[in-house]
């Protein structure tokens, strides 16, 4: 932590700054610009103050989408984090099998997101999909196109399928860094399996677990492509999450003002929650 102070290091950061300024600051300023103006077409804009923000914050549709989004992210974290830890504890430690398992587990992470949607769309169909067909044969009335519960269940299982490996791989990396001596000491003390997990493995995984929670929270909060392909936000609005609603507004209906105000609020919510995670993360690391 005793890094030398050297302001010339700015020159090394400069390329990143220029590039990110071009690809983030300029577009973001456009959004800010739209969010406070109204237009009657013809590229004529006039000042609208905070009107759009008020409209967005009072919109029942957007509030409902935010509620669904929060619920979705909460369910995803509640399933994927414990399951990921559990899988990581059961992964083979070394040798050929360890490599093979790693490669197979990473596979879903590298499938384009719309293909993930396609896979589950096909897999869940009652007529041609293995999952839908099997459930139908068992006499379960399953149809993700018409039934909101089935649509939610499908999207959650899909996300668990898609991302649990990320959590597991992170935890696995954390477990790999624990020296054998710790386990030997635990054996001498006749620690129980639970004790080993609670007092050795969990504390050592803390750092990577926080990364996992942060990444999973951000990405599940921004989810767009997969539910869009599987359900298109339906049935009704049952699976219309924030990004789906936003894209519908911005690109479908071209409602620039409200969409821009919505974007800024959306971004600020993510930023706020992520900042809390990040602060907790760095405070934890500095303490150890």
């Amino acid at each position, binding site marked *: 932590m005793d890094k030398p102070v050297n302001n010339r290091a700015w020159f090394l950061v400069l390329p990143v700054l220029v590039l990110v300024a071009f690809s983030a600051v300029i577009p973001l300023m456009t959004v800010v610009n739209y969010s406070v103006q109204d237009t009657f077409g013809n590229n004529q804009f006039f000042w609208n103050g905070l009107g759009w923000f008020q409209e967005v914050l009072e919109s029942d549709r957007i509030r409902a989408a935010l509620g669904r989004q929060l619920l979705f992210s909460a369910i995803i974290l509640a399933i994927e984090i414990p399951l990921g830890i559990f899988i990581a504890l059961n992964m083979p430690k070394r040798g050929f099998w360890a490599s093979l398992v790693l490669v197979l587990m990473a596979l879903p992470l590298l499938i384009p997101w719309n293909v993930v949607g396609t896979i589950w769309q096909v897999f869940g169909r009652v007529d*041609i999909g293995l999952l839908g067909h099997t459930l139908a044969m068992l006499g379960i009335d399953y149809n993700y196109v018409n039934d909101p519960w089935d649509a939610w269940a499908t999207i959650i299982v899909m996300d668990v399928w898609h991302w649990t490996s990320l959590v597991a791989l992170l935890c696995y990396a954390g477990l790999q860094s624990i020296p054998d001596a710790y386990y030997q000491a635990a054996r001498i003390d006749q620690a129980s399996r639970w004790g080993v997990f609670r007092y050795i493995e969990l504390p050592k995984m803390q750092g990577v677990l926080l990364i996992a929670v942060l990444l999973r929270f951000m990405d599940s909060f921004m989810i767009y492509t997969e539910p869009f392909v599987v359900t298109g936000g339906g049935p009704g609005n049952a699976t219309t999450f924030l990004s789906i609603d936003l894209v519908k507004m911005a690109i479908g209906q071209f409602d620039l003002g409200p969409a821009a105000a919505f974007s800024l609020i959306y971004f600020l919510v993510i930023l706020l929650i992520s900042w809390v995670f990040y602060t907790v993360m760095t405070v934890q690391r500095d303490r150890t």
Partner: protein
Amino acid sequence: MTTARASRGSAVVMTLYLLFLLVPIYWLVNMSLKTNAEITGTFSLWPLNPTLNNYRIILTDPSWYMGYVNSLIYVVLNTALSLAVALPAAYAFSRYRFLGDKHLFFWLLTNRMAPPAVFALPFFQLYSAVGLFDTHIAVALAHCLFNVPLAVWILEGFMSGVPREIDETAYIDGYSFPRFFTRIFMPLIASGIGVAAFFCFMFSWVELLLSRTLTSVNAKPIAATMTRTVSASGLDWGVLAAAGVLTILPGALVIWFVRNYIAKGFALGRV
């Protein structure tokens, strides 16, 4: 004895988990080897009359296979660009303190947290205004939004694992900074560079929203080609499945190359 039972339990857990992961993928492969008549007509766990016809359609039709070429071009461009700017920046963050460094680092990370949906429309307007719409470089630049921060984050983690004495010794030996950086330092963090490249490749390859918004014909990615085919003909399941299988292959190849670093890589070098 208990360890034997425990390891058998682990094997059961892992088998179940891998089955859960692989069965949906198997189903896609299975469908890609069937004709449409067989997909909709009969229900079978494996193709009764395996056919490669679906793959032949994709590999002989330019409007299909150019999608793969376009995707690969912008993914490679993006990976090269992200690493080129992230390497010096990560070095600065890992070695020095400077005015505003912590704020800058967090600001960079906020771009990784920005929902692509927020940026879709302004990107469209920005790149149209500067005449880059429907080019590979537009998508490559747009993906820098989340890949550059990620690359800086990963590389910084790996670089901080290299003792600073190495830098100091090299400077005393008379190495200039560029020579030291390329000859000594980069080989030391080669695995970190590989991991960062892997992640840039991965996130650029799987992204659809921005790449679809910024392209129409000349640089259209394979993923967008697929969605349009679904909405147009709706029923060509076999070709759709084959296209999906072909999008999985590049990822599988890349994973194989970095398999030994993958666990550490996913922890962003911070274990």
